């Protein structure tokens, strides 16, 4: 006795849910019966109808509304990064200020100490080699490296070895915070040609937005054609965050 074909099987056949051989067998049986054939045709038509319904077009204001909102979100993100940078820079500036006061205090202390009574023992400041001043460069701790940058900052102008070491840190240190501290330290002496070149080449390889923005702002301060051209080339790069490009564009208008 022929097995009765159910409506569920017809639906499965119309939906394409059966494997090829089962579908072929079922289709042959269905075609033998007018009622089943009509049912399959109806379901095929209905399914085709649901799949080919045209998409309802959204009103024209949907996209501009989304674009405005996304633009605001991107702007908020940039402001937040800027605020984070300001907090960090404030920390660096306080640390630098504290170091300067300590240095002044030590200087005054030794100066007045030199004028003291003869029977006082005068202790000469130990001579520290550049290698010793740069001992922190290869340490594991990012905090130690940042402190090292603050300690050696005063010697950048006088000592090419220290200047070059800081440029190397700015380009290659694994910590974005350390690279940022190096940018800040070098920015004080940005009129030095080697430091200018160092900033331009660092911008080409830097991937962290907060450091990119610090370099951009330092270069903007140069107000030189070479720096401007580098910023224009930077804006054309593909893998730069849009809000960083905006910062560069803004910087160019200020140059």
């Amino acid at each position, binding site marked *: 006795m022929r097995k009765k074909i159910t*409506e569920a099987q017809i*639906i*499965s056949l119309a939906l394409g849910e059966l494997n090829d051989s089962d579908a072929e067998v079922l289709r042959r049986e269905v075609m033998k019966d007018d009622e089943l054939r009509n049912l399959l045709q109806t*379901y095929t038509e*209905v399914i085709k109808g*649901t799949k080919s*319904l045209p*998409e309802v077009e959204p009103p024209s204001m949907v996209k501009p509304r989304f674009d405005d909102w996304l633009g605001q979100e991107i702007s908020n993100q940039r402001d937040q990064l800027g605020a984070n940078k300001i907090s960090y820079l404030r920390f660096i500036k306080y640390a630098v200020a504290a170091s300067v006061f300590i240095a002044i205090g030590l200087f005054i202390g030794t100066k007045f100490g030199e004028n003291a009574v003869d029977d006082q023992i005068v202790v000469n400041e130990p001579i520290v080699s550049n290698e010793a001043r740069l001992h922190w460069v290869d340490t594991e701790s990012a905090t130690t490296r940042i402190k090292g940058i603050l300690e050696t900052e005063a010697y950048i102008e006088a000592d090419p070895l220290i200047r070059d070491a800081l440029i190397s840190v700015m380009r290659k240190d694994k910590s974005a915070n350390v690279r940022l501290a190096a940018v800040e330290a070098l920015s004080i002496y940005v009129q030095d040609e080697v430091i200018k070149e160092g900033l331009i080449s660092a911008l080409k390889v830097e991937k962290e937005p907060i450091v990119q923005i610090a370099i951009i702002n330092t270069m903007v301060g140069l107000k030189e054609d070479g720096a401007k051209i580098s910023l224009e080339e930077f804006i054309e790069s593909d893998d730069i965050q849009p809000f960083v490009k905006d910062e560069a564009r803004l910087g160019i208008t200020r140059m």
Partner: protein
Amino acid sequence: MTDEELMEKVSHGDLARLGELFERHHHKIFDYFTRMTNDHSLSSDLVQNVFEKALKGKHTYKIEYPFIGWIFRIAKNCLMDHYRSRKMKTVEEIEPYHGSYEISMDHLDTSNIEKAMSRLSEESREVLLLTRYEELKYKEVAEIIGISETGVKSRVHRALKQLKEVYVNVI
């Protein structure tokens, strides 16, 4: 770039990529909302909500998960939130169509299938709308609706049966 790669970039802070995803998919999502609610203005608001929630929840996205399933799950949740906030009946509570209530066709096309679909229960209409997009397999639809894959198949069959009845006997 695939949808999944774009969304991964968004989750890492490249917010502009969400614009590309919006371009690709907001029509489908708007279509889904309009066919479920028959309200263009509400659907526009819900589309915006979906992408705001996608951005807010960007850290929850995993690149292994098909983006289209993920965004439609957010869309479904937005729709449920809307129903709850309006103290309307949920999809599960809507009674199936039994008789002769009038549906306004002002906002929709007047093809026979559309007329018939508008007369189905929300549950049936939803499963047919979601499964008609090729990118959404039964597995993704199951996760969007919150039932098993077998449950989706069963619902599709039931919905098609209802649709056939309305299409043949009423329209």
